[in-house]
């Protein structure tokens, strides 16, 4: 059992995601990786479907992992993990493996979890494999040059959803809510939560809860991307915090059919305060912002965030 981490000072010193990668300055997913690896510890196997955290990490002969890491296709993180987990089951049953059975973690981007990789994720959860599937959500196909994914917010510019006179808002669709897709249709699922790199202790403890669960777990981590979202690289944590404080991203655990909120909020900031700091939203008109605010309000209500959005007094 992995113990609860009470504070950032008491988090383990050991790092398992170390220098040796080529991620951008201020990379949110890289920080999510580091925190996840720290929480999981040395007895861990990572499966990395294609995405930023494959391409930027895995140069030949040089990588940032101190634990085993294996590439999966962007389609099939859940399936490769299933094979590895099944293998360790056989090894244990046939008494061919003496050590403690390792933690198996899939670390997939939003494409590999929510879009093309959803089928394998769902199959893995349905079958009950003892795997923690993590989606690091940077809200686009960032590795291929910032193309829209299903988690890209409404109104965001991407290279596949440019804004123009005919399509003034850029992305017209509202994002797919993968934690909800996962939560409500997989009877074997043992743990589900969302996390943010803005709340590192909470994130690490959710990783540990997911790993302690005997069976499949899903963790959806929002990880801001300075390049794709177009904000300065020293603002990554600020963006992560604002996403939660505006309700654009909601932090919770889902256990026994109930949402348990992870952060106490007295009030929410309006989404406009989040949008104005990211150039991907620079083209939005007031009516678009209003539409997005209404969507966020409804989504917050669904998980039990009832405090209203109130503009900061300045």
């Amino acid at each position, binding site marked *: 059992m992995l113990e609860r981490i009470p504070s950032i000072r008491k988090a383990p010193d050991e790092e398992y995601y170390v220098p040796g990668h080529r991620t951008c300055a201020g990379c949110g997913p890289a920080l999510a990786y580091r925190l996840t690896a720290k929480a999981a510890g040395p007895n861990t196997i990572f499966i990395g479907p294609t995405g930023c955290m*494959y391409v930027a990490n895995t140069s030949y002969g040089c*990588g940032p992992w101190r634990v*085993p890491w*294996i590439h*999966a296709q962007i389609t099939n993180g859940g399936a490769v993990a299933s*094979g*590895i987990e099944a293998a360790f089951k*056989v090894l244990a049953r046939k008494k061919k493996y003496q050590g403690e059975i390792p933690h198996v973690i899939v670390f997939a981007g939003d494409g590999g979890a929510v879009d093309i990789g959803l089928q394998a994720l769902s199959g893995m959860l349905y079958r009950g494999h003892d795997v923690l599937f993590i989606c690091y959500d940077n809200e686009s196909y960032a590795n291929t040059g910032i193309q829209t994914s299903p988690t890209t917010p409404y109104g965001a510019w991407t290279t596949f959803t440019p804004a123009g006179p005919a399509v003034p808002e850029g992305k017209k669709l509202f994002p797919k809510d993968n934690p909800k897709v996962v939560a409500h249709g997989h009877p074997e699922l043992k743990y589900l939560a969302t996390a943010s790199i803005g709340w590192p202790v909470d994130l690490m403890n959710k990783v540990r809860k997911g790993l302690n669960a005997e069976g499949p777990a899903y963790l959806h981590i929002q990880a801001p991307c300075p390049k794709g979202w177009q904000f300065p690289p020293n603002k990554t944590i600020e963006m992560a915090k604002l996403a939660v404080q505006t309700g654009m991203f909601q932090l919770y655990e889902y256990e026994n059919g109930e949402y348990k909120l992870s952060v106490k909020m007295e009030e929410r900031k309006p989404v406009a305060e989040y949008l104005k700091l990211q150039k991907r939203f620079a083209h939005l008109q007031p009516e678009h912002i209003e539409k997005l605010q209404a969507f966020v309000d409804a989504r917050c209500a669904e998980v039990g965030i009832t405090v209203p959005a109130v503009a900061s007094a300045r």
Partner: protein
Amino acid sequence: MREYINGNEAVARAVRLARVDVVAAYPITPQSPVVEEIAAQIASGELDAEYIRVESEHAALAACYGAAVTGMRVFTATSSQGLAYMFEMLHYVSGSRVPVVMAVANRGLAAPWTIWADHQDSIVCRDTGWIQLYVETAQEALDTCLQAYRIAEHPEVLTPVMVCLDGYVLSHTEEVVEIPAQEAVDTFLPPYKPQRVVEPERPLVFGVGAGPDLYPAFKQAQQEAMDRAREVICRVDEEFYRIFGRRHGGLVDPYRCRDAEIVLVTLGATTGTAREVADRLRQEGIKVGVLRLRALRPFPAEEVRRALAGCRVVAVLDRNCSFGYEGAVCTEVKAALLGLKEPPAVVGFILGLGGQDIRQADIEDIFRRCLAAGSGAVHQVAAAQSR
């Protein structure tokens, strides 16, 4: 022990005898009975393995890959659309050099929809870096699956193997099959000893990227492993013979080719029909022979050249079509004969697509057409015989 079973059941017996650890598969006709049988063996306790009933063929091969890099002996089976759906993973598994063994119950590809036999599904995968062995009988399907693990796991080869059996004609047709004793199989096929596995005690990175400076070396290594596989396939077949008293020709299986004027090149189950026709024509004094290719990859160019060098006309029977050219096996046979001083004429016949029956009369027709062909003339019959 002898049993009256079909090709699918024979494959499933081999999986049990090979003591496979992890099976991942998705249902598709005409392969499904293989996995049904394996599931029953696991349910009854005859086979101690994890069976992952995955959500797609792509996932089947992905799960096999994951288990294989963890050091397990793995198995999957598929056909047709399922094999096509695996296409991406076929390359990934061979490029990663993990010894997966897969049975393919050959079936045509849609459209139009068909569930019946031809070789199009596996032929189009001949450039995916898998060893491809085509079997003629249910007995050979069982024996070849056992041999396939020896070949795939050989440290000088480490290349996945596809064991191809004609859908229905082999997969669903019963014949008497000798089931080898477990102890004998254990001697022939000891447990898989992987060189590198995924385990936290020795952290390794699997599936790295390789730039233009490194990528070609990996591909060169695959090609060299295929070259070495030629000898390994033959050696394993011989070793199998010493233990079990049966062999299947290694790379090629020639029949009455030595003094033949005309030789028909075949794959798979049609060969038996062709041999009967050859025997009958021989009684008429017409010198014909049959050359079955057991291995399509690695391609046995040397053996093909040796078997065909003396004949006047080579007929190639293709149950596939490389649209815009000809049957794929025909092209390969022609290439193998290049450079011979007096090369035989090569005539291609595309027959038996989508389960079209190949009758003795069809084969006799092929031989007689070739008999009429002038020496050195090459002509192409690019469509199925009209009936």
